[in-house]
């Protein structure tokens, strides 16, 4: 079943068309990987899914992205609510320079969620979900920036989970981490996908193959415009790609 539905989405930065006519369905409770060479618009597309492009003044998005049959780009659409439903983890771990507790509590606080559930419970549950509760339970007041990078990235994931999103977007979430921490993040994604729909951008082909259920291959055509070349189940994309350019890319012939 489709969770988010991108229809003919194009993006321009100023005059420059960087994504052309992207149509793909993000499947519910599955991991979708976006792969492709640098500059082909993966991050741009990911940011379209929770309208983080809004804050880039020169960015213009056309087409539709449906969430529950509603176009998130429709006039008057509640962007704050969208960001709560579609959360985001960034490439570099970026906890706020505050305590571990305050980091996780940030979202629930600004959204006023703690009126329904105790903040302590939300924080504990979120940290448990990302598997660092045991490591930090006795030092919730500690500055989050003193954690290891891997812990910081999982804290960022907990910060997103705390607002109870439906979809989690991750832009190369492991590229700043060492191999062991990378594997932990990947394991975590496999656990989380039981409850969440996940879209991940990755440069790492093995990672896409290991972790994702669906793979979308983007490529820059004419050296300029990002296009979706092929989209399908990860097993098929990696074993029987249909487009010659996909074959070239996953066999490492360019990119």
């Amino acid at each position, binding site marked *: 079943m489709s969770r988010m539905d991108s229809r003919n989405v194009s993006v321009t930065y100023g005059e420059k068309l960087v994504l052309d006519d992207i149509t793909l369905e993000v499947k519910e409770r599955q991991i979708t990987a976006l792969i492709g060479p640098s500059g082909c618009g993966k991050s741009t597309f990911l940011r379209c899914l929770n309208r*983080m492009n809004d804050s880039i003044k020169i960015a213009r998005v056309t087409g539709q992205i449906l969430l529950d049959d509603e176009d998130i780009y429709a006039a008057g659409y509640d962007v704050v609510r969208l*960001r*709560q439903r579609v959360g*985001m983890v*960034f490439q570099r771990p970026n906890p706020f320079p505050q305590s571990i507790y305050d980091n996780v509590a*940030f979202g629930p606080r*600004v959204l006023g969620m703690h009126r329904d559930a105790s903040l302590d419970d939300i924080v504990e549950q979120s940290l448990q979900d990302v598997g660092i509760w045991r490591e930090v339970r006795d030092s919730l007041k*500690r*500055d989050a920036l003193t954690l290891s990078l891997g812990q910081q990235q999982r804290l960022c994931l907990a910060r997103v989970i705390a607002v109870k999103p439906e979809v989690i977007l991750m832009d190369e979430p492991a590229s700043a981490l060492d191999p062991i921490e990378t594997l932990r993040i990947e394991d975590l994604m496999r656990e989380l996908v039981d409850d969440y729909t996940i879209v991940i951008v990755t440069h790492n082909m093995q990672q896409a193959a290991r972790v994702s259920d669906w793979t979308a291959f983007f490529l820059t055509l004419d050296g300029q415009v990002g296009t979706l070349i092929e989209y399908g189940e990860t097993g098929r994309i990696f074993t029987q790609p249909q487009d010659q350019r996909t074959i070239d890319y996953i066999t490492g012939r360019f990119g």
Partner: protein
Amino acid sequence: MSQQLAQKLGFAFLGLMSLVVIVPILLVVGAIIYAGFPALSWEFLSAMPREGMRAGGIFPAIVGTLLLTLGTGLVAIPVGVGAAVYLSEYARDNLFTRAIRLAIVNLASIPSVVYGLFGLGLFVLLLQFGTSILAGSLTLAIMTLPVIISTSEEALRAVPMEYRTVSESLGGTHWQGIRRIVLPQALPGIITGVILGLLRAAGETAPILFTVAAFFLPRLPQSAFDQTMALPYHLYVISTQVPGMPLSIQHGTALVLLAFVLSMNLVATLIRSYFRRRREW
């Protein structure tokens, strides 16, 4: 000439230059402490001046300077920090905001006596506040604003853009990100700027000359529309306008003003190092 020798000479030269800067300051401070300390007494700090200021204390001048600093802060802090938040977080980069920034930079270089005359014209005469604490505080506030705005804006801009983006991605509004993350991060810088600005206000004579300062007023102000004595102006008066003034009173007054200004400076330094230390565990 060997590299090492060149380096040694370079360091020696730089060291000498620092001495040239520091030694006169130390001499001035030392001289004031040496000459002013004997004049200090409980009576000097807490009594009204008597006998045409040639005896008694400087209590009203101390109170006046405290009140003026407070009044300046009450006006300049909200306006200055607010303007800085607007410029750094909301204003688009266009001709209008560039003009504002240019104006702020230029305001900072206007001689203080011009602020004094401006305050006289606007607050004392036009708005009919009279020579009063209100007029003086407003005048000092205007003089202080450029410092507060530019240091606060700098502090706000030093906070990584990323935090604002993350806040937004979690459903925070623009303002929530500013209030909960950006402002707390920028706070040490803002506080430093505020204190530096207020320091300047506390020590200035020219802006209060026509707007608030009383030559000799041996009682405390009763309201914001009262005149008051103030330390810098009092120092000017007893040093130049009153014949037969005991030197010790002049030095004592200078010492009190210096102590006030330096202790505010110390507070600024402590706040900064406190916040810096909190970063490291």
